[in-house]
């Protein structure tokens, strides 16, 4: 058994790319090993700011030998054919062939023994392929070379059982050396095995394991905080990022001017984390922010970190003094008076000012005319103020404070909490785990803002493709789904999309850039693509909750009398749940089987007869008890099911069709559909089409899998 150690050492890799790259390296190398018939015991990847690497243990020393047989021509075949066969098989003469016999006589067989390649040779061939084919989010060339990597690649360590696997990529020869910490341990380190590698890197002040680096940072940070009676503000994303910025983490604590504690805590935390990657600290007793912070350096300084701390303190004080200046300036402005005029939301969609107007209108449409008056007033005020903070210096400097600053500045003008809270929360939820806005007004504005965004982009045929979703439209749709479903707010999306579309269309301030571009989608096209986008997002949302995607398709495929798909997300979810529960019952399973049987027969017969059997079966052509019973049951089920969707009693609708199960089973047991008499046969086929229609009134069962 042999162990592979591979390390690609380069200049500083962006923190956000390191883990994915190391994983990609592992996947690419192990997939190729497996393809080459080389199994292994275990594989692990690792990454630091300057290296990604991989350790694979328990590889065989060589590939298994492969015996390949190639059938040749008959012994009686012309000489030319035999020569060609020998050449193709790489054989010198017929002596190396076997002769075998079948019914037609004797023929040649070439038995080719392919000895397995040495594992080292396989690796020497595959690693250069992996390096050349590596996918970085952005890659570059350097110097005079043509190799691409995220930043210049400097060395490759590749050993199998402690011996160098020799190969060359873009002029870089694989070897058994690496490099330690940039400052603490310049110079080469010989590290032929994984144990030596880890140990010598550690001596050279590199903690290879990311989890370990995070632990060290967190432990040291907590310890420093504790020594001052403080607690570290938990921030996993920041911890992850910082672990990607250092190879030898040293946590240090600094202080900033206590006068800055007058700033909103969100401002302090953002100033510390977004640019500087500092951890905020809180008083362990009161929970209030302290005028101290923890930061992580990549150096064990000779002066114990005094100069580093002083430098970082100076930077933070300067940043906070900027923030204080913005805070004071912004509060002198009246949020009411700030004009969004001239700010472009998107060149194809138009100005932000218009977006706010549309959002306010849409939000009022969502709460509806029957809402209490003060709700409508608050919706209007909060919507109109919602984006104004984009004109403030603070949000210009710290875009992630949008909404939050608006709420502070509105509060400074004595707007009530019913208005300020929605301003703060209307961007939520920003992710699948983020909370939705807490009150009705915030929920409605958040929904309206996102729906207006979606209509604007979809109308212009700007949609997410593959992994590209630069305007976070998937997140917007998921946000709407979560708000509506989690608050059980019933809403018909189609009329809202239509009225919002009309506002987009009549937007009087069109941008020049929008004019020479392609014609936007029509309102019907927009409704259709947007609803199927919601359907896709809903599938993802419900799949995470365990629902079957085919059931969602089955519900979305329903059409009302105007041909519109269902557009009330709450009702759709209820129907999917009812359908799922029904199909889990015995009745459901059997009925689905009966439905599929009916549909299959119909499809075959309709195709054969080139006609459609949609229609109502007539009583006088029914001779068998079973078909009469079925016709009666369908009539009753249709009556019950017709009432149910109006009352949105989907369980009731399912129960109504469930009663068809026994008559359908009996029909198939006792009745021959393809009767000799033409009119009887046609009548029975019509009855089958009635089964289909009845069930498809509840959901499109043709989309349901199984049965």
């Amino acid at each position, binding site marked *: 058994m042999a162990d592979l150690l591979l390390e690609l050492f380069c*200049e500083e890799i*962006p923190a956000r790319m390191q883990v994915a790259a190391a994983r990609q390296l592992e996947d690419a190398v192990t997939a190729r090993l497996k393809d080459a018939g080389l199994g292994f015991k275990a594989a692990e990847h690792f990454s630091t700011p300057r290296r990604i690497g991989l350790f694979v243990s328990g590889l065989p020393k060589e590939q298994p030998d492969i015996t390949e047989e190639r059938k040749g021509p008959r012994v009686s075949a012309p000489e030319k054919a035999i020569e060609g066969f020998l050449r193709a098989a790489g054989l010198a003469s017929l002596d190396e062939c076997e002769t075998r016999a079948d019914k037609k006589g004797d023929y040649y067989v070439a038995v080719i023994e392919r000895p397995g390649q040495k594992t080292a040779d396989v690796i020497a061939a595959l690693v250069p392929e992996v390096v050349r084919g590596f996918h970085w989010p952005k890659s*570059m060339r350097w110097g005079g070379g043509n190799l691409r990597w995220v930043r210049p690649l400097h060395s490759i360590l590749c050993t199998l059982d402690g011996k160098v696997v020799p190969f060359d990529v873009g002029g870089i020869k694989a070897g058994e050396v690496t490099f330690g910490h940039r400052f603490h341990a310049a110079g080469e380190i010989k590290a032929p095995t994984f144990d030596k590698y880890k140990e010598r890197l550690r001596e050279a002040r590199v903690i290879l394991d990311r989890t370990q680096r995070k632990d060290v940072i967190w432990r040291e940070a907590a310890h420093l905080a504790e020594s001052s009676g403080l607690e570290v503000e938990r921030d996993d994303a920041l911890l992850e990022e910082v672990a990607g910025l250092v190879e030898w983490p040293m946590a240090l604590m600094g202080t900033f001017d206590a006068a800055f504690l007058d700033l909103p805590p969100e401002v302090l935390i953002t100033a510390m984390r977004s640019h500087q990657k500092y951890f905020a600290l809180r008083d362990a007793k009161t929970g209030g922010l302290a005028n101290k912070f923890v930061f992580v350096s990549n*150096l064990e*300084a000779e002066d114990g970190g005094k100069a580093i701390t002083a*430098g970082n303190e*100076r930077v933070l004080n300067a940043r906070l003094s*900027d923030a204080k200046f913005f805070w004071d300036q912004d509060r002198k402005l009246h949020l009411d008076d700030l004009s969004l005029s001239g700010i*472009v939301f998107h060149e194809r969609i138009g100005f932000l000012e218009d977006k706010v107007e549309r959002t306010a209108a849409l939000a009022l449409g969502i709460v509806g005319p029957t809402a209490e008056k003060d709700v409508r007033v608050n919706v209007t005020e909060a919507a109109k103020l919602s984006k104004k903070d984009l004109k403030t210096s603070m949000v210009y400097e710290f875009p992630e404070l949008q909404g939050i600053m608006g709420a502070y500045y509105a509060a400074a003008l004595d707007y009530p909490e019913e208005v300020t809270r929605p301003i703060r929360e209307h961007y939520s939820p920003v992710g699948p785990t983020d909370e939705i806005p807490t009150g009705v007004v915030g929920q409605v504005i958040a929904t309206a803002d996102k729906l207006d965004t979606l209509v604007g982009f979809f109308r212009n045929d700007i949609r997410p493709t593959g992994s590209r979703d630069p305007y976070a439209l998937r997140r917007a749709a998921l946000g709407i789904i979560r708000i509506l479903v989690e608050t059980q707010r019933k809403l018909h999306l189609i009329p809202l999309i239509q009225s919002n579309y009309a506002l987009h269309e009549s937007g009087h301030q069109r941008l020049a850039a929008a004019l020479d571009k392609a014609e936007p989608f029509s309102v019907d096209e927009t409704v259709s693509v947007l609803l199927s986008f919601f359907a896709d997002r809903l599938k993802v949302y419900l799949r995470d909750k365990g629902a079957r995607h085919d059931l969602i398709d089955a519900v979305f495929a329903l059409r009302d009398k105007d041909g519109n798909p269902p557009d009330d997300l709450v009702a759709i979810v209820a129907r999917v749940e009812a359908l799922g529960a029904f199909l889990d019952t015995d009745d459901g399973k059997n009925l689905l089987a009966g439905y599929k049987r009916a549909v299959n027969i119909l499809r075959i017969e309709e195709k054969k007869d080139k006609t459609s059997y949609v229609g109502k079966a007539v009583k006088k052509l029914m001779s068998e008890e079973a078909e009469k019973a079925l016709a009666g049951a369908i009539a009753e089920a249709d009556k019950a099911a017709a009432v149910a969707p109006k009352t949105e009693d989907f369980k009731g609708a399912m129960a109504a069709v469930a009663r068809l199960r026994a008559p359908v089973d009996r029909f198939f047991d006792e009745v021959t559909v393809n009767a000799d008499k033409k009119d009887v046969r046609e009548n029975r086929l019509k009855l089958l089409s009635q089964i289909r229609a009845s069930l498809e009134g509840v959901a499109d069962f043709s989309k349901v899998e199984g049965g």
Partner: protein
Amino acid sequence: MTDAPDRSFQGLILTLQRYWAEQGCVILQPYDMEMGAGTFHPATTLRALGPRPWNAAFVQPSRRPTDGRYGENPNRFQHYYQFQVILKPSPDDIQQRYLDSLGALGIDWRNHDIRFVEDDWESPTLGAWGLGWEVWCDGMEISQFTYFQQVGGFEVEVVSGELTYGLERLAMYVQGTDNGFDLEFGGKKPDGTPFTYGDVFHQAEVEFSAYNFEHADVGVLTQHFKDHEAECQRLLKAKLPLPAYDQCIKASHCFNLLDARGVISVTERQAYIGRVRELARGCCAAWLESPQGRTDGAEGE
């Protein structure tokens, strides 16, 4: 290097010039034209294209009219200095050479936390982009570091490494001051104290802020933009990339001034940027046909 480097503003410049001269760089003087960043210097933009090796270092005064604060903000100036280094092809040890330059300035890595933090560079007006970092010293950004990949819309043949030191930031760091105007510039007043950055530039910041925001004549600038644009195109037809590129630089500065005057709408802004980029592309294309730029450009030509 001496043990105690001169930390005055001009001392930093002298140290950097000496250091990069020792590294084989041509020490150029600032280009005699208004530009937004050292990257606009033809010694960077044009020389980055084509196969020929090139090593140069220079101070470039950089003008960003919208950054004017009438001398009231201690950190933001509409005129400041960049120290620019271009090494082509980028040497394997370029990071180490950069770090050694910090050492020459008296920034000792043993007590300072120096970090390369992801920061990709893009110039829409030059049609250029590259990958690299901003360099942090104890949490403060002191330099930009870029490997050029594309210039004027053309993929570079040989990659240049570009280092840009923000001299004011760097000087504030090594002198330990939070106010740019308090920086010790150098020289000596009759009382023996050095001139400050404020002594040298404060009045200029006040006056140019007034010019950039209030007095620059929009009609004249708009006309100048058109004239420089037309002149650039005319010179390109005459296959004179260097004079044409001067006109491109001038057009770009007119645009920056118009932008500061607040008369360019968002859409127009894109259009102006596109027009400058078109000029830059033309200049780069012509450069690639010129003796210093083309692939077959023999050394003796």
